[in-house]
């Protein structure tokens, strides 16, 4: 998917992340990158590749395997006005630094009544495919959406990846940026100049009157694919990418649901107490009985992620399962069975890892 704007230059998502990082490092000497392997020959899937060559070893450095302290160290540096960017190759590892992120970073501004600010960016990559298994496939964005004092963004397009990261780096508050591994190779138009993508503004990716599909991160792609499947049988889906999860642009989503009367929220994560629960609840509260609607949540199965492909394929929502769900909502209980054609997700099916 590429959203064409004035400029026609295309980059991959990984390149867009790299570009935002490099241009902010050029702009502000306080910006630096720290993380396991950020300066290694693979450069975090290319997103940090060689930054130490331009900016010196002090501004793009490898760290010990010590997620808790390294997060605390980032916070401490931020207290003195540095602007660290930390990267986790898998979001599963942030479970080791929840204490610093939630008990410290999120609270320091409030607890000290503004005496401190924590301009910290944490990039966390959600793994998928090629047998990532139970411990390399998890998505914990809801954990951060739960906590006041943190911002959470989950850009889907290269354009938004660059813009969200730029906004995050310039923000004086701790920001979690969620990147889906399946998006790193996806291409899209990215302006060369710097720009910020604002918090709390959802993007309507496609217009439609029959059903609202909200897709988070990689699931926005699958929703667009589902939309095409649905179009073929005359159902017009409006696809919305929230982009920013905290704060969340409930107005845009609710306005769409007000028209369509039907909502499917598709998350790259579990449902229970997840982002999809929050979005559904927020739309419900927002419409507040003024407009009846029906809604569904989709996401990971309520199990750990199985490794074997045959089971892993069942674990994730697909364009097809999203289309089926939307179809069920639109046509209602009595409708004829509809089996949408298979829609290939090349970024998944062609992925060969190794991680």
């Amino acid at each position, binding site marked *: 998917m590429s959203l064409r704007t004035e400029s026609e230059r295309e980059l991959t998502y990984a390149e867009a992340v790299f570009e935002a990082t490099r241009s902010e490092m050029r702009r502000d000497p306080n910006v*630096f990158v720290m993380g396991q392997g950020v300066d290694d020959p693979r450069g975090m899937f290319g997103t940090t590749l060689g930054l130490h060559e331009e900016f010196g070893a*002090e501004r793009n450095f490898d*760290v*010990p395997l*010590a997620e*808790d*302290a*390294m*997060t*605390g*160290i*980032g*916070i*401490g*540096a*931020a*207290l*003195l*006005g*540095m602007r660290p960017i930390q990267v986790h190759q898998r979001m599963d590892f942030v479970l080791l630094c929840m*204490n*610093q992120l939630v*008990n*410290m970073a999120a609270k*320091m*501004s*409030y*607890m*000290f*009544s*503004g*005496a*401190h*600010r*924590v301009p910290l960016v944490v990039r966390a990559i959600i793994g998928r495919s090629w047998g990532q298994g139970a411990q390399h496939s998890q998505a914990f964005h809801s954990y951060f959406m739960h906590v*006041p*004092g943190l*911002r959470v963004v989950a850009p889907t397009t290269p354009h938004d990846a660059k813009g969200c990261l730029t906004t995050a780096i310039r923000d*004086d*508050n701790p920001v979690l940026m969620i990147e889906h591994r399946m998006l790193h190779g996806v291409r899209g138009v990215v302006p060369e100049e710097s720009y910020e993508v604002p918090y709390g503004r959802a993007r309507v990716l496609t217009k439609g009157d029959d059903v609202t599909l909200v897709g988070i991160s990689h699931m926005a792609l699958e929703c667009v694919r589902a939309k095409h499947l649905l179009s073929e049988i005359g159902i017009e889906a409006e696809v919305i990418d929230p982009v920013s999860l905290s704060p969340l642009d409930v107005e845009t989503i609710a306005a769409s649901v007000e028209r369509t009367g039907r909502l499917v929220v598709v998350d790259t994560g579990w449902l229970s107490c997840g982002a999809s629960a929050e979005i559904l609840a927020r739309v419900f509260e927002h419409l507040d009985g003024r407009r009846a609607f029906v809604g569904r949540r989709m996401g990971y199965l309520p199990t750990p992620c199985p490794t074997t492909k045959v089971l892993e394929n069942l674990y994730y929502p697909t364009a097809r399962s999203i289309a089926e769900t939307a179809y069920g909502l639109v046509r209602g209980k009595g409708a004829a069975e509809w089996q949408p054609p298979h829609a290939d997700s090349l970024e998944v099916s062609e992925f060969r890892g190794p991680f």
Partner: protein
Amino acid sequence: MLGPAGASRRLTAEPMEVPRNSGTAERLYRSMYLIRRVEEEIIRLYPSDKIKSPVHLSIGQEAVSAAVCDHLERSDYVFGTYRGHALYLAKGGDLPRMMAELYGKAHGAARGKAGSMHLVDVDVGMMGTSAIVATGISNAVGAALALKMRRSKAIVVCFFGEGAVDEGSFHESINFASLKRLPIVFVCENNFYAIYSHVKDRLAGPGLVERARSYGVTADRIEDGDVLACHDAVGSAIEAVRRDEGPRFLECMTYRWRDHVGPGEDRQYRYRPEAELDLKIKNDNLAALGRLLPPDLKQLIKAEEEARIAAAIDWAEKGEFPAASEVRDHVFAD
């Protein structure tokens, strides 16, 4: 909002001649006396329910903060724990604003949002305290990293109890500090107990100093009981860090007289031998230091500090509580 004019932020009395190490003894006595007396006032005030938050007192442990901070510039940074009154005061934190904070008032150090457990005064480099054990240590190391990246001459001192060494976070932090040779002093206040749990029931092996050395960090154990000796030992460690010789670790032996939390005593719990406590009280560091000062100087210091304390309490009591609207302020920096 600043405190009353009388309450200057730094301890500025001029040094006077006393038997040994005169200026130092005077400064340390003044600092320790202030801490002791402020906390005794907290004990006195606590039953009135005006201080509606847990307090963790440093009575008995004053020497460590006083001795360390005496070597620090205002531009140096300290990080501490919920047991933070002593550090806040020794580093020159604003006393009236501390008292107002304990009262939960709007003119408190953090407008009442922090309470005793989260004292902060960034103007003097008191960077705040955490109530989650050991979590401030990595923050302190991060501050030291920032100083190094900026080629600053300032240093960081990080205070924590021996209980914090149990936490993996301590190890990750000291390893990184050593790896990058950061300008930081780790000051472990070993008061033997984490709540009611003795260090020997939590810490295996030859001891804290050996732990630190296993990270390539020069480490010393400083015994309790001689404040001036402690001051000297701390001084050379800090000088080494200033000379960019990498981090230092100091195990400062000390002892808490009061209960882990709250204003009371804790003899009724019988988790520690009464004789152990009694001996510490008998060998009171503050009294011993006081004996080195001429009586009239001592009296002068006392009078000055008492006046500051009284003024601070008065100021704190008079202030307003924050307005309801403040509850939503500062979730984010703007």
